């Protein structure tokens, strides 16, 4: 299940040698197309670990469940802070659920 790329938003990390999603993908799957927009080269191999989604500074990536497994359209959007992460989950009926917690240090 490859991440869906919002080609409007994706700036290919300004055509750097490797975009941040390309740098981080554990499966070596994200890469830049000729027009310098990110895409997943082997959609079948994606583990949807969402590392790329978290890394994208433009918010241009989104993980979607393939239709064969789940209905249209549910969303799960992480937002990364310095030591926090929030998740917004919107199910197919539009129900919104939110989660937030500290993901690094300073729990006291």
């Amino acid at each position: 299940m490859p991440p869906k790329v919002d080609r409007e938003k994706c700036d290919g990390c300004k055509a750097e040698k490797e975009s941040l999603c390309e740098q981080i993908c554990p499966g070596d799957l994200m890469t830049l197309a000729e027009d310098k927009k990110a895409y997943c080269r082997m959609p079948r191999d994606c583990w949807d670990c969402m590392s790329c989604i978290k890394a994208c500074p433009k918010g241009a990536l989104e993980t979607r469940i393939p239709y064969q497994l789940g209905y249209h359209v549910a969303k799960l959007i992480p937002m990364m802070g310095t030591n926090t992460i929030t998740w917004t989950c919107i199910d197919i009926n539009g129900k919104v659920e939110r989660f937030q917690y500290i993901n690094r240090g300073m729990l006291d």
Partner: protein
Amino acid sequence: MQKTIPKIGLFIYEQGGRLARAIDLDAVIQRLARIKNVTRCEVLTDLAAPLPSIKEDFTSDKFNRILWVGKFSDYQKKTIQSELSSAGLNPYMHEWCDIEEQGIGIDGVDLGIQTQKAILIIQMSLARTRLLEPLEPLELPAIDAALIIGAGVSGLHTATSFMELGKKVYLVEKESGVGGKVASLHRLYPRICDPRCGLEFEIQKIRESDMVEVHTLSKVKSLEGSPGNFDVRIEKQPRYVSEEKCNACGECMKVCPAVIPEEQRSRESAFINETSQQVLNSLKSEKKAIHPAVPMPYPPTFLIERQSCPSECRECVKVCPAQAIELEQTSSEMAFKVGAVIVTTGWDPYQLSKVEEYGYGIYPNVISNLEMERLLESPPAIEEIGFIQCAGSRDERHLNYCSSVCCSVALKHVLYLKEKLPDARCYIFYQDIRTPGFDEELYQKVKSLHNVIFIRGNPSTVKPGDDGKLKIRTEDTFSGKEIDLSLDLLVLAGGMMPSQGSFEIAQLLNLPQNNFGFFESHLQCHPEESQRTGILVGGACRGPMNISQSIESSHRAAMEVLPFLNRTILIEPKYPVLDLTKCDKCKRCMEECPFLSYVFDENGFPSLDLTKCRQCGNCMGICPLIAISLRNNTIKQIAAQIQALKSSFMGKEEPVILAFLCENDAYHAAKSAVEYGLPVPPNVFFIKVPCAGSVNNALVADALAFGIDGVLIAGCKDGQCHYVKGNQLVKTRSGDLSDKLQKMMIDPQRVRFESLEIRDSKKYVELVKSYIEELRAMGPNPFKS
């Protein structure tokens, strides 16, 4: 480095019961004393008396950092810091928390809420204090010499002021002599004196000093290194005459057979009459292939223009008594080190042939104001003369600005011309006469002269008349009447534009230019600072200006350079540091740094040139991996502050705003709002940042995650940012965040960017109030627990 467990001494400085009136001080103390890491917590009513005991507690390791709560003057802070640093406490281990500037003590707020808020503000500061680290300023050696590019009037004056300050100067000029445009003028205004007199005065100083090295026929080839330590390479064209040997006797020029006509405009011969022929003749000039340096003969040696010199001639070689002719010279390169660079590349006249309606370049008796300077040396008999002001200036097709000197120049011309030809009739066609300051006097003087006619309205057509005169048709916009005139001579006031040399230097040194090609600078506060640290811009390369302004500007540039030429450059430990373990070499910091302070290190990581960095923190704001932190204001510290802010201290329904305020403008607006007693709502907490652009999106995400209802980022207005584009950068970034919030079904208005000026206190209060209303309407942040 072994991490020490933070032990914090917390002192609340209470002056005259101010705090006790606003908050429940006992409750605050009780609450704070229970907080982890706080090892001593008390209220001080006097600063001097308890200092020895504070010092003692520090030496006995009761605490290792101090949070001071209250209002402290800079003097008090300095005293405390130095007092305790004598006991071994690093000055950066103090944290200062002024709760009053955040609105504690404002009338009309419930004591309970004030107390709660005070505790929160102090807790935020405590979170910061816990992460304080001892810091030391850096000292970098600098070279005590400066490079000046362009030896016009600005360059010469800068050079002499340096020289007088005892600094070494390298003055590089592409022409063979010095003096620039000013040297080609006939008279200066308002005192109608000869410009060479003033220039000669400066040259004399240079001549007598060994602190100034003048390199003419030279261009800068490269500039590397950083402020305080630049490596310069210049290329020198050959003069074919030895500078050391030539004594400027001029024997060579007598025998030189090669005469070079100076560049001549093509004129349509059909329209030439006697006057125009005279005009042409007096503008014509020629020189020998071997001639003294121009425009001012300094260095006082001759040079040969080899392309015009017959190769087998060698007449000059034969006659030169000093044996100074060296026909085998080739171009050479030189290198030297300087601490700073001043660019004084001046201006070029606008090409008037582009203003086609006036027939410049076609009719011989249409000339430019610069040519008029030369014509004035021996003016032909002219009866009727017109001056068109704004020939192409303030015109969107040509120069869309006012060159500011042309009106006065025309007045000067009239004044001088009338001295020589009292009967000449002078027409001045103008849009507005602009004679700032004392030039008004000039205007009044000229206005009172006989036969000087001011006509408001620029001519629509210029055509040759039967007698070779020019037929001018114009509208007098006061009377609305068409006026037809027949003139002997028409002088066009062309505007000033950046010189060719400025464009070359801009490219070479990567200096930003404004829309018109003049060097960009912070026009008001630091007009001579270019956007590259250590490179200053002075004189007319910054914009149109008259001679006295150029001289002022170049002196000011010289003053601004001095800090770079000190023996050491002191760098405050507020610069950004990069955590290489996090960096992914994405290069965003390098791209967005307004001062190009980053370079690649050998492993491809960005590395900071501390001398170029102005510590604005925009790199910290942009870094997607939050790998960059300002040394004294780390991203961890800010995150800890945000975490300490409890978003529901006034109940879940009441919105809480976290404001990141730019310390240059917005912070002062907020602070003075309290000082003026404006009703600042208690809902807002702020964190001071060096520039709005230093606020990383991750911090905003943190704030939202911790349930803060609204995040306000306030920076300077467009075009007013002290760090050039920080406010723009943060706008783009918060745009990305807004899109994301929208996707997350969170109102994007929960994150707002606003521009505030230093005096916008009222606006700040209004803004916060209306924001609170908006947030109330939105309901609590969905992440608020």
